[in-house]
């Protein structure tokens, strides 16, 4: 347990202490969201109807962008070898990293999302649902992302490959994430989407540390 907390603490320290990428990712999230109206025009009604999708896409891209720093710096400086001989399982290390990754990328995005909601003409109730769906869905993105980063960590230039590999796997997260906000099938469908989203996140969180640990161990030896 002390190892788990140690990894968590170290990740948080590294990401949050001076010059971390947290603010950069938040800025990226905001800019992606803010650039859409320039592409499709400032029509408030149209913007409001696609705002949930825009916010989800922006969050998705921002989380993919932060993937490469998950395991690669550790591999480059030798910490990954240390993890493999540590007094804790690799799955535990990955789980701690997923939690830290979520805390330092997804949570800041959710905190910044009211700004995007405002400029994209979202109304209050819709925004509340958006925040909830992001809270429930981003853990799955973090877990899938960690798996993608683990699969590509042994590759010298694997930076671009991880997003390509895991984007198809994240399709259900996007579908249920947006489906939970913009209920085309009525409120019943929206709440079932919310439940599916939570189920996906739980499943991804439970399984991805093991799959990622397997990929790291076997990619390294």
């Amino acid at each position: 347990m002390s190892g788990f907390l140690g990894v968590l603490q170290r990740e948080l320290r590294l990401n949050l202490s001076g010059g971390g990428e947290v603010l950069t990712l938040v800025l990226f999230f905001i800019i992606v969201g803010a650039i859409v109206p320039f592409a499709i025009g400032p029509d408030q009604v149209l913007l409001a109807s696609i705002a949930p999708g825009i916010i989800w896409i922006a969050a998705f891209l921002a989380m993919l962008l932060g993937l490469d720093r998950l395991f690669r710096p550790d591999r480059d400086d030798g910490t990954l070898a240390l993890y493999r001989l540590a007094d804790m399982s690799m799955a535990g290390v990955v789980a701690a990293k997923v939690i830290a990754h979520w805390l330092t990328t997804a949570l800041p995005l959710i905190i910044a999302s009211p700004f995007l909601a405002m400029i994209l003409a979202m109304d209050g109730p819709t925004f509340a649902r958006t925040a909830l769906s992001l809270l429930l869905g981003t853990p799955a993105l973090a877990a899938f992302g960690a798996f993608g980063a683990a699969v590509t960590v042994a590759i010298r230039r694997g930076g671009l490959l991880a997003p390509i590999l895991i984007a198809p796997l994240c399709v259900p997260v996007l579908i249920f994430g947006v489906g939970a906000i913009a209920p085309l099938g009525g409120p019943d469908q929206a709440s079932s989407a919310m439940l599916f989203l939570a189920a996906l996140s739980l499943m991804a969180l439970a399984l991805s540390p093991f799959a990622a640990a397997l990929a790291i161990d076997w990619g390294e030896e």
Partner: protein
Amino acid sequence: MTQGQVQHRINLKTQALACGRGDAVLVADLSLEVAAGSALLLRGPNGAGKSTLLLTLAGLLRPISGTLVFEGADPEAGPFIHHCGHKNAVRPRLTVLETLRFWADLNGSGPLPPAAALERVGLARTARVDAGYLSAGQQRRLVLARLLVSPRPVWLLDEPSAALDAAGRELMAALLVDHLESGGLAVIATHDDIALPGAATLTLGAEA
């Protein structure tokens, strides 16, 4: 003496061990025996497979063939090997003490607290400094402190004396002597002369 406790006794035995990277064999048909309380110095030219052998002994690489046994090791008791590669695993933005505490958390801490270990390796004054500011030799000393905070009976060191000054080498030799006296085992790949009485030497790549 800071490291008073007696180590769990473990002997290392290999038989017809072949190891290498991918499918390129670097070290073939190696049978060696290192008993608890003794050390083995690996020597040989660059590319002879010293680092690969150490990685294989550490279990970080899979042996291509042959067997590798640590007699007396209790698999339930957790990992018993320290491996120090070329990379120091030191990351800027963490202080020296934080780095060492993290290692102690990760590897399981022993009787020696991190601050005392830093003192032992002569880094006490830099405890609050960003680890990225340490010189190469100081980083190496920090790695030595990692060996002290989590007692493990098997030390596999890959050129531990690289970048160390004369005092640093003396320190390392003293730490190794303590480790061996307490019943530990060490395999050290090095190009330098390390003052270890009674250490066996294996020269790799001599016959090729």
